[in-house]
């Protein structure tokens, strides 16, 4: 599994993808910082995570990160190399998931510099900031897992990307169509974390959704053995 993680990370950071991900995210995050902190003059670090530019850019960045993970292997045939190795499918899927997660975690760590700026000028709430980051990572985790699943069902990266973007946007705007959907909206769950609370139900939802997506990916990969 470590081999897969190492290789994936090498891919993310030897090609522009990792830098594009972090760079564009930080630009959007800066815009959010400007809009929430500078325009309104408040020192709430956590609001930045919930603001529209941050979320909007994630709808495209997370699919960018995950869309190639299995589709590219399938298209290039390199899938044959990993699937005929002694590695189990579970480890391969987890390896890909963990490496994409590491990129998002590294990105989240970069946001701490904005926290530093706030500390210099004011007194932001540390514990709320921490819960916001935790919530943000969980939030991204759910979409990363879905993106990897989308990538496993097609050999076309673009289609995998579009499926993930569509899923993100649908789940994002869902609550405005029907208020009943609010309780299962990931965005609303993220909002809870930015208020400084860690809701067990929300945390369980994020984690279980991730597990379901990973299991589905494993099932898809295993099933492909017999239908391929």
């Amino acid at each position, binding site marked *: 599994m*470590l*081999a*897969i993680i*190492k*290789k994936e990370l*090498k*891919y993310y950071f*030897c*090609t522009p993808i990792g830098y594009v991900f972090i760079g564009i995210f930080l630009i959007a995050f800066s815009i959010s910082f400007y809009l929430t902190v500078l325009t309104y003059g408040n020192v709430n670090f956590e609001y930045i995570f919930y603001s529209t530019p941050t979320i909007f850019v994630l709808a495209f960045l997370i699919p960018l990160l995950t869309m190639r993970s299995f589709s590219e292997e399938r298209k*290039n*045939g*390199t*899938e*044959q*190399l*990993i*699937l*005929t*190795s*002694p*590695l*189990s499918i579970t480890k391969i899927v987890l390896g890909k998931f963990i490496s994409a997660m590491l990129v998002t975690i590294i990105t989240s760590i970069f946001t701490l510099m904005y926290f530093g700026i706030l500390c210099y000028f004011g007194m932001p709430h540390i514990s709320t900031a921490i819960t916001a980051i935790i919530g943000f990572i969980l939030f991204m985790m759910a979409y990363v897992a879905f993106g990897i699943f989308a990538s496993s069902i097609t050999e076309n990266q673009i289609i995998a990307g579009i499926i993930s973007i569509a899923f993100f946007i649908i789940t994002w705007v869902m609550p405005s169509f029907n208020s009943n959907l609010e309780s299962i909206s990931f965005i609303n769950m993220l909002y809870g974390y930015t208020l400084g609370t860690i809701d067990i139900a929300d945390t369980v939802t994020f984690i279980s959704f991730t597990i379901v997506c990973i299991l589905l990916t494993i099932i898809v990969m295993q099933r492909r*053995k*017999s*239908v*391929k």
Partner: protein
Amino acid sequence: MIEVKNVTKKYGNVVAVDNISFKINEGEIIGLLGPNGAGKSTTMNMITGYIEPTSGEIIVGGLNIEKKPKKAKRKIGYMPEGVPLYTDLTVKEFVTYMAEIKKVERKQRKEKVEKIIEQTGLKEVEKKLIKKLSRGYKQRVSMAGALVGEPEILILDEPTVGLDPKQITEIRNLIKELGKKHTIILSSHILSEVSQICDRVIIINKGKIIAIDTPETLENKVNKTNSIYVTVEDPENKMETIKDKIKEIKNIKKVNENEDKTKQYIIEAEGKQDLRKALFTELAKENITIFEMKKPDATLEDAFMQLIEGGDK
């Protein structure tokens, strides 16, 4: 070493591989022959555990590939068709990665990677990105990927496709060399290649095995007419009279008249008798000079074509 028992693979209603069984012993080099779409790659993919057979059983080194995939897969080095590679990695990175996923022990990894790069002649390009390499080198990188971890079994899907003649010879020599230590299955549709390298040949057509034998036996199986090619200088046009002198000759046919005034004939004989000696003495008596005389060899090509066509009927 490898046992394939009644294996069938269906894609929907299409039967790609139809109830095949064969056994491969340790240290053998086996050639899998067949026209395109015969089921060669499907068979190889099933042996490597990349795809599952619809029914049947595959035993690799005493282990069922479906039930004990981890242990069984460690015994196999696979070079898939079309040499899929991670083109963004350098040669060394790729081979190291393959060593890692094949669970070569950390302590020996570096040394083994080094050794394989040396063995496959990749030393001078080890720091280059794979996408910058020529086809021949890519093929070797793929081979290095299969070799790393010293698997007992090597499965090579069309290892010489797309190479120039020099590279083909190099790869063939490498395979022969490897055959001393490994059990090898290779697929190809280049028949001469198979007859040169392989101990035994499995001919597949339309998902069915139509022959398993040594290349020599297969060549001998082909019913050939007993004929001799002769090129002669015959100024007096006496060639036709030879037929009366040697009783066994059934037919003399002129095939070619060369610019240097020599003529080529096919002489067909009855029975299995070799007429070359008789021809030599008789032609000399008639003052006909022999420039060339040969018995055409039945090739694996003939065997292959006959078997495939026979199967079609």
